[in-house]
């Protein structure tokens, strides 16, 4: 059974369908690629799966549980976390705090332990801080940990998106264009990093317009167009198919 199974997912905005019955499965232990032209509905799919936008039909099953229509925080705590295409986050918090916020099981987030500074909260905070430092170091964010997140460069904000997702100790990470705006050397590193995490047992579903990254990293690759899944297979198979080329016609591949 697949880790994430989506069947017949629908969502429209103001009468126009963004998702018109998406069927898609992500196998455990894969880096699955999701490509498709602008406006195909990829981000909307992420929004519906992560609970930010309620779907109007269909089913999302994650890790054996039907999570359709769940609150986003319950979905996140179950082990499914997503990043945002246009980096979002908490500009008024430092980079370190952005990372710590995503740390799970912090008793200090409950009212009474917070009011009386429970030692258990302090211990957990130390663990999370250690973890945040390690993640920041790998994403080259260790120099800016104490800066407000609003002071990061565009690329650094994208990296922070990934770092925050990793803090949750997830099973499945949905990455929305993780390397858009990141320099080639660091993009390469991120790719290598994803592969290492894959070996550790994580699973990824990655939206990306950089075809070379998709080709090197993702298997299988799923193509979406006009709110539907169009094709699925290895990158080579996908690239050879006429309807896929047609779906992409008229737009540049690298955004």
């Amino acid at each position, binding site marked *: 059974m697949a880790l994430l199974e989506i069947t017949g997912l629908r969502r429209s905005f103001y009468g126009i369908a963004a998702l018109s019955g998406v069927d898609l499965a992500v196998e455990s232990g894969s880096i699955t690629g999701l490509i498709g032209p602008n406006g195909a509905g990829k981000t909307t799919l992420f929004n519906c799966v*992560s*609970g*930010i936008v309620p779907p109007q039909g269909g089913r999302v099953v994650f890790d054996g549980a039907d999570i359709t229509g769940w*609150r*986003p*925080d*319950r979905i*996140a*705590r179950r082990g499914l*976390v*997503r990043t*945002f295409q246009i980096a*979002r*986050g*908490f*500009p*008024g*918090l*430092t980079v*370190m*705090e952005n990372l*710590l*916020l*995503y740390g*799970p099981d*912090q008793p*200090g*987030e*409950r*009212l009474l*332990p*917070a*009011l*009386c*500074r429970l030692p258990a*909260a302090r211990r957990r*905070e130390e663990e999370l*801080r*250690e973890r945040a*430092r390690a993640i920041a170091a790998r994403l080259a964010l*260790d120099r800016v*940990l*104490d800066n*407000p997140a609003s002071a990061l460069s565009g690329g650094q904000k994208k990296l922070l998106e990934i770092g*925050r997702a990793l803090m*949750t100790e997830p099973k499945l990470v949905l990455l929305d264009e993780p390397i858009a705006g990141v320099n080639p050397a660091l993009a390469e590193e991120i790719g290598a990093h994803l592969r290492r995490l894959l070996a550790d047992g994580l699973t990824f579903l990655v939206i990306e317009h950089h075809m070379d990254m998709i080709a090197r990293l993702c298997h299988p690759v799923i193509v979406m167009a006009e709110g539907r899944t169009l094709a699925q297979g290895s990158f080579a198979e996908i690239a050879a198919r006429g309807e896929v080329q047609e779906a992409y016609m008229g737009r540049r591949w690298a955004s």
Partner: protein
Amino acid sequence: MTDYLVAMLTFAALYGLMSLALNLVWGMAGMINLGLVGFFALGGYASALLTHRFGLPIPVGLAAAFLFAGACGVVVALVTARLRGDYLAIVTLGFAEVVRIIASNEIWLTNGTDGISGIPGPLRGEVPPATFNLVYLLIVLAVVAIAFFLLQNLRHSPFGRVLRAIRDDDQVAAVAGKWVIAFKIEAFAISSGMLGLAGALYGHYTSYIAPDAFVPLVTIYIVLALSAGGTGSNLGALCGALLIVFFQEGTRFIAAWAPGLGAVQLAALREIAISATLILILRFRPQGLLPEKLPRLAKR
């Protein structure tokens, strides 16, 4: 003069308590509450009725004020759960006016616009008035100190971090695994409870409450106090409250060096002096006198 100073400090401490409450819900969680005076009134009436009409001890009245205003805060937070910014401001402003109008009209309960007089105060009548005032100041200061200590704990805890995250982007906070609405309700409830407590302390101090003490202007003063002191900072909240009371009272002495002005003109002159000072502060220090500081956690 000492009596005057003591009274002024007591009012400053009560303003400080309200300003701390506003800092929790607005400064930290980013929810603007313009119904401060409504919760203040709820607490004031709750404690006055319990102690005056039913003869319960004052500490019971204070606790009841906290709990009753806090419970009303939960209801308001639930009703306004999906509202943000301007909409939340308008609804909470309306809530406070509803409280005031109910207090003016439900005469059987609140004695209407005549208000409730003879509210007991600790040791009132047993010691000289000056001693009472001093004791009461110490009590209010102790309450403010405890509130400040607990809120500082919250501010620096993971709980406070979640509130500040919600202030920035509640959708991303939800993706981070936080049950946003629960945090918002908790913050709103504690803040409302503190306002209720402040209202109760006010009633036991002046021994008299009436609807005309609960006008929106009080809320505006608290919002100004926090903005000038530093939104997001507990110390800023206290500092702003002290500043506002200092100006309100200090400008009374304008009369001394502005002879020949009528009472109405003097009152207007005071308002102008207060407004001008606040405009200057917000123009040259938009983040307030003691702005929120970010923690430095990178080093181990």
